[in-house]
């Protein structure tokens, strides 16, 4: 299904491609990301001039605008960077491990699993702050990923269409349980529906700090297995004969996806499509080599997330649309285009 270029994974066979292209593209992406972060600091219901912003960041300015920057927008932007990077990397690993261009945290049911766990926790334990949701989101994400994986196996191999559909069925199940819980209690509904939209607004850095170690571990794991993912792209048997422990790589990859995507959901709520879109955006630019794809997704993920967040702040000024809803709107057409491609 995934049209991979086998020559890209056997490194000695590709001296044709100039070695400078990928670092240059990464640097350009990094530049775009810095620009986007600056926009995220400057734009919002109150536009703040760049000079004031710079003063606030260096600590020389105080008062209204400066407090908005340091107190609200800096944490928001940092969280956006971390969540976007985690989702982008999770998408790249998920697509590599399952050899399926439609795999993503959403299609694997991870978001729905985390949502159900969080809503159940709010219902049963009277939680009120996103910082308290973290562990429940993690647990839900992990359970859902295991279930989706179990369903998509067919005669020992993973069936891509089955994985996408199985994940959707799982999502339907978990979503109706979530709705039932929310309908059973008005307090839960009111508490949870904003979290369920997926947003990086109004969170302080203390939401991010407990999750950060998991994101780092997940990221290290992703980098560690990225050469093996290149071999896996050739097919299970070919990878096996190259000496890659396929089963162990699958487990490690799944674990990395759960850590990264689970952590992202725990901080921001279910944000769709970043994990799906980032690898597809990067692949035409940097090629199929996971050693370049992964850093590319680390830049493309936050770039997409922050751009969507800024867009959500601008369209209905002075109010704003949650970033999860913006990405879902933009992502649905993308999924349709991908579907046309995959199915030829």
């Amino acid at each position, binding site marked *: 299904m995934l049209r991979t270029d086998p020559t890209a994974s056997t490194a000695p066979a590709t001296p044709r491609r100039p070695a400078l292209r990928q670092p240059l593209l990464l640097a350009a992406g990094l530049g775009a990301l810095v620009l986007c972060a600056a926009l995220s600091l400057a734009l919002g219901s109150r536009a703040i001039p760049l000079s004031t912003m710079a003063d606030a960041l260096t600590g020389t300015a105080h008062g209204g605008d400066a407090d908005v920057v340091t107190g609200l927008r800096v944490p928001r932007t940092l969280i956006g960077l971390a969540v976007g990077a985690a989702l982008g990397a999770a998408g790249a690993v998920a697509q590599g491990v399952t050899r399926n261009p439609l795999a993503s945290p959403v299609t694997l049911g991870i978001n729905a699993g985390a949502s159900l766990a969080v809503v159940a926790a709010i219902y049963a334990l009277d939680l009120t702050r996103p910082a308290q949701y973290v562990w429940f989101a993690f647990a839900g994400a992990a359970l859902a990923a295991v279930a989706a994986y179990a369903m998509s196996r067919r005669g020992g191999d993973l069936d891509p269409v089955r994985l996408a559909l199985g994940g959707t069925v799982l999502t339907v199940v978990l979503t109706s349980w979530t709705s039932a819980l929310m309908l059973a209690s008005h307090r839960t509904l009111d508490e949870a529906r904003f979290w369920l*939209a997926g947003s990086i607004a109004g969170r302080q850095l203390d939401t991010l700090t407990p999750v950060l170690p998991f994101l780092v571990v997940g990221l290290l794991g992703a980098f560690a297995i990225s050469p093996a993912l290149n071999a896996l792209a050739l097919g299970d048997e070919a990878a096996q004969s190259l000496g890659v422990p396929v089963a162990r790589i699958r487990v490690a990859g799944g674990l990395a996806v759960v850590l990264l995507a689970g952590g992202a959901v725990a901080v921001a709520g279910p944000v769709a499509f970043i994990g799906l879109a980032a690898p597809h955006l990067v692949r035409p630019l940097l090629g199929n080599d996971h050693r370049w794809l992964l850093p590319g997704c680390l830049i493309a993920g936050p770039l997409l997330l922050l751009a969507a967040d800024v867009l959500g702040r601008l369209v209905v000024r002075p109010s704003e649309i949650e970033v999860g809803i913006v990405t879902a709107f933009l992502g649905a057409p993308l999924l349709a285009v991908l579907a046309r491609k995959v*199915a030829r």
Partner: protein
Amino acid sequence: MTAIAAAPTGALTRRRVRTAAWSVLAAALLVLLTGIALGTGQVSISAWDALRALVGQGSPGDVLVVQEFRAPRVVSALIAGAGLAMAGSMLQRLFRNPLASPDTIGVTGGASFGAVLMLATGASQQLIPLAALGGGLLAALLLGGLAWRSKLAVTRLVLVGLAVQQGLAAAVNLMIVRFPAELASSAMQWTTGSLYGRTWTEVSIGGTAIGLAAAAVVLCQRRVAVLDLGDDSAGGLGLDPGRDRMWLLLLTITLASLAAALTGPVAFVALAVPHLVRLLAGPPTLGTLGLTALTGAVLLLGADLLVLHVIPVHGLPVGAVTATLGAPWLLVLMIRQGRLPQRSS
């Protein structure tokens, strides 16, 4: 298919007998559950008296309670259950995919979108079913428009359906987040699928429309059976598979949208019932289509009885129950099928 043709006629007869037996059993269960549903409530009536009151016999008090208060709800459960199950069975055949259902191809999202949009404008309650129907047809339009590329390929339809579903669900989600708490609650109630507050007007209009659509589906069965042979064979037999599939799909989506307009998009009836019928009576034929409709009606009515009289949560939508009961069974079914060697499909 070749297996059926090669099988001795005895096997075919046995399957027909089994289908007929299960159909009789389902019909009996249907009558029994209808009697119980009509008789149970604040005023208790025996099942037999309740059925008699339905046709206007017995004490005037019973007739009033049964005909005015309980019957609309029961009848709408029966009609919508049958319609959803038939639509699900047709979708699974047309998509050649055991997981195709209104929930996965966008009809649920479309119907929810239409209804919630109507709730947002604050229009009267009577317009909501109409809006849901419109939303379902919008989903069909999106599906056809996005998946069309000289002809409708099945895999592309399935995946584009997922995209349509997710996009429309995002729109619904946006409105639920923006609504005040009270409106958000009723929007969620509606999008989960519930049977509260049905009137005879809604039931009679919806029932007529669903009946017509179901009759059309039955008339098309021969064509569907030919399509089941595969596009090449169907083409060889003089059908235009792409065009026929499109019209059949439109008809099926209309049926599913009508059912969703009556009760909201009740999850899993359309997905699970065809699997159950396949386990009981074998591969789909015209005979099993009737059994499918009966089973869908029985299941939805049974789930509604659970909601009303067994589960002690007030105002729980019936969709939550069908999902809770149907989902684990379906998951187990999928996992078990995963162990089997790959079938050619």
